[in-house]
């Protein structure tokens, strides 16, 4: 059956439609919380126009692992901004505000992640935009939302601040060690994703009623949602929820173990048949029948959990990670080596599914990237093209979307409303650009596909 639904998915991707075709999004976003969401919509076919303040644009262009630029672009930036159109528009300038409102009048969604009230102070806030487009869906994302104590103090925020504020980092550490910051930006990315949940629900509502709306979210408030049991636990027990390292205190056994070959393996086997399988794999089938381990709720109790995890840890030290994976497959419990990014990229399964996808970009060339992770049998989302320099698509957007003449565009440059990149790494096009590759051309008002 899977074959009928999913056969040749990777190949069919090229010719199939995208689910959000026809939706237009304007983004005034920087870093990750802001741009990641419109990036998701763009991979699903929405037309996203990213407005950056020229000539430096999005601060995320500077985020480089130990200073490394990928083909002349910041990798964090490249990851989060696929399939977009690039507009260098200085919203401080009155002429730029006018252009923005013209674009807003023809858009479905606006997303920004500035501090509260900034768009309003530029006269391009929700109250101004809904006058020209009452159906607009407007999403504002930031650290603390639009109102409340911290918003009123105008505090800045980052993902790391949210990891701290929410208790997420606290819960993601080893007991007795200081709270640990994640290597990724979970609060930004998750806030970005949750924003699109609300935006698409609002779009559904607009289809039904014609009504647009305003949506705001805080990255801290969103990551708190993922912390599940922590809140009722604290309410009910009056105690602080405590971290447990790699051990999952809600699933037993579930932990990460150190193996004979120095590798780490994650194991989970809570359901009766899974736990029985693990005990058999360890050569101790009788364990599953012992009273202290007999059912999941009993096994989860602190002392019992500590004992079974110790037994598994001692056993895992005598096996390689690969051996444990093989036994898990045979006995029906779950195990996985702790994959590095190399393992993920080189994994044949992820490649065959097209999650590891080959991008062929006119500016950045060929490279492998992570695909949008929801596979859709009839409308497969995909990374089509990569990031561009600040203001790269100015002419296209002005001519194609707003019907501006060459003379009008020239004037917009002269007054500083429109601008292009600064001649610095991460802002300008990659070295060797021929001045043409990747440019979109509007012809007779008809859209020409990205070359």
């Amino acid at each position: 059956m899977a074959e009928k639904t999913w056969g040749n998915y990777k190949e069919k991707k090229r010719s199939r439609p995208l689910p959000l075709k026809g939706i237009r999004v304007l983004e005034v976003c920087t870093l990750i919380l802001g741009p990641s969401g419109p990036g998701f919509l763009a991979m699903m076919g929405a037309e996203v126009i990213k407005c950056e303040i020229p000539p430096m644009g999005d601060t995320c262009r500077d985020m480089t692992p130990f200073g490394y630029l990928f083909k002349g672009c910041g990798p964090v930036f490249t990851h989060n901004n696929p399939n977009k159109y690039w507009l260098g528009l200085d919203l401080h300038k009155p002429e730029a505000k006018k252009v923005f409102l013209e674009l807003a009048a023809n858009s479905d969604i606006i997303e920004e992640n500035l501090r509260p009230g900034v768009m309003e102070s530029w006269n391009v806030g929700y109250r101004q935009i809904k006058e020209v487009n009452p159906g607009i869906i407007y999403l504002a994302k930031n650290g603390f939302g639009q109102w409340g104590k911290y918003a009123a103090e105008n505090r800045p925020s980052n993902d790391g601040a949210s990891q701290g504020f929410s208790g997420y980092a606290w819960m993601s550490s080893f007991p007795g060690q200081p709270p640990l910051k994640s290597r990724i930006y979970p609060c930004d990315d998750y806030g970005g994703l949750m924003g699109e949940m609300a935006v698409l629900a609002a779009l559904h509502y607009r289809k039904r009623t014609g009504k647009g709306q305003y949506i705001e979210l805080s990255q801290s408030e969103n990551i708190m949602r993922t912390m599940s049991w922590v809140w009722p636990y604290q309410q009910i027990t009056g105690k602080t929820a405590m971290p447990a390292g790699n051990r999952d205190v809600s699933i037993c056994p579930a932990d990460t173990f150190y193996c004979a070959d120095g590798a780490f393996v994650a194991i989970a086997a809570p359901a009766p048949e899974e736990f029985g399988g693990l005990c058999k794999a360890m050569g101790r089938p009788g364990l599953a029948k012992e009273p202290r381990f007999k059912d999941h709720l009993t096994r989860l109790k602190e002392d019992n959990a500590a004992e079974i995890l110790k037994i598994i840890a001692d056993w895992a030290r005598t096996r390689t990670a690969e051996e444990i994976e093989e036994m898990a497959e045979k006995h029906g419990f779950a195990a996985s080596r702790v994959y590095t990014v190399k393992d993920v990229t080189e994994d044949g399964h992820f490649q065959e599914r097209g999650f590891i996808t080959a991008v062929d970009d006119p500016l950045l060339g060929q490279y492998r990237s992570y695909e949008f992770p929801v596979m859709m049998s009839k409308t497969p989302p995909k990374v089509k093209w990569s990031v561009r320099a600040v203001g790269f698509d100015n002419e296209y957007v002005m001519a194609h979307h707003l019907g501006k003449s060459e003379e009008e565009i020239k004037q917009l440059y002269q007054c500083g409303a429109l601008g292009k990149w600064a001649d610095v790494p991460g802002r300008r096009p990659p070295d060797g650009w021929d001045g043409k590759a990747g440019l979109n051309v509007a012809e007779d008002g008809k859209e020409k596909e990205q070359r």
Partner: protein
Amino acid sequence: MDKEQAWSDWIKERDDPGTAHTKPEALDDITVLDLSYKSFAGCYCSSMLAEFGAEVLRIEPPEGDFIRTCTPYGMLYKGEGLNYLTEGRNKLHITLDLEKPEGREIVKSLASKADVLIETYRPGVMDGWGIGYEQLKKINPKLIFASITGYGQFGPMSRSRMPDYDNIAQARSGIQSGTGEVMPEGKSYDECPWAVPTKAGPWIGWAQPGTFMAVGIMAALYWRWTTGEGQALDVATAEAYARFDDFAALWYEGAGVAAERFGSLDTAAWLYCFAPTRDGAVFLGGLRLEMWQAFADMVGKWDEWGAADWTNLTVFTEKEQQLKWAPLVFAETRKYTNEELVNMSIEYARKGRLAPITPVVAPVCSPEEAMKDANWFDRGIFTPVKDPVYGELIVAQAQHKMSETPVRTKWVCRPVGYDNAPVYQKYMGFGPSKLKKLKGAGII
């Protein structure tokens, strides 16, 4: 335009979660069947839809979903596991035995009336029961059939016998490997068992794929408006979580470097770290050069550190530079409490040399401190839900503030089979005697 009113007041009047119950719901025309089993990803996904107003029929086997037993330290509250208690919200709970042919016939009938079906069984299980996508689409071509599993519906590992759990998804994503404390020089695993690849504590390897699927479902619903067609959706939890690895894939692709653990510093950014203080730790953020300069100034090191001469933030991101500067920064932050440092940054935004530019300073809180922070409480995150079964309970909610169709938590959870009578009456026309018969036969 009512411009005279301050923006924050104007918008609060319109999107304060306290007024949510007076407003319509975005998805109250959508019916969802949630057949997920042993998967919090499935429950989380259907919660997303239920919060926006969809009618979600949560279908469990007669003995209840195993996921209800996945609760910290084996703790139950009024008979319920604490995780399930937070994500049973707004769903109607019914039971049905899918192992029995009669049970599958009932699912087919329900599916003919549904918009979305969510399931988390191993690939092939639903097909084997005759209720897979290809079979159900014959009954209902508009159905959106959403599967969330560890390895997805196709590809070599999709045939794996292994079940899907949060810690496995986190391990497989490539993210755990690069997160954690660095092993101190000359030390071994046995001496420092905390200096290892470290997963996130919360079930992000389940919540996030569930959310991705909910977003995919919304896109599929949008496409259905134009074409009238349903489709099948496939999320593999490890892939979904891996997508959040913002720089590692391209760093590896371009430079062949696999990101390694860097403690609470940040491989891709400076100033961006947790820093120890007199009473705990703070997060410090300064992703623009001026913010890093403002930090130096704020702690009185403008001249000594030569901050006026800094011209490029990128050089500070390099590993050697970070390892050189971090101890200098920590020596300063150790002089203050969390509160003092936070206040210094707010003050700096008002009066500092580079004001209004200021570094981001945020306390690293315990979740108890977070829950007591009036800011979040005032914004409706921890408003207790008055649940008819479980009483007043705090679950995180209201994370979206929306002017027209706000999310809301109407109830937190329901016991197994709680809604059998009304749901089977409404959808199947089964009265009490028929239900009794089905129950007797072990079908519901």
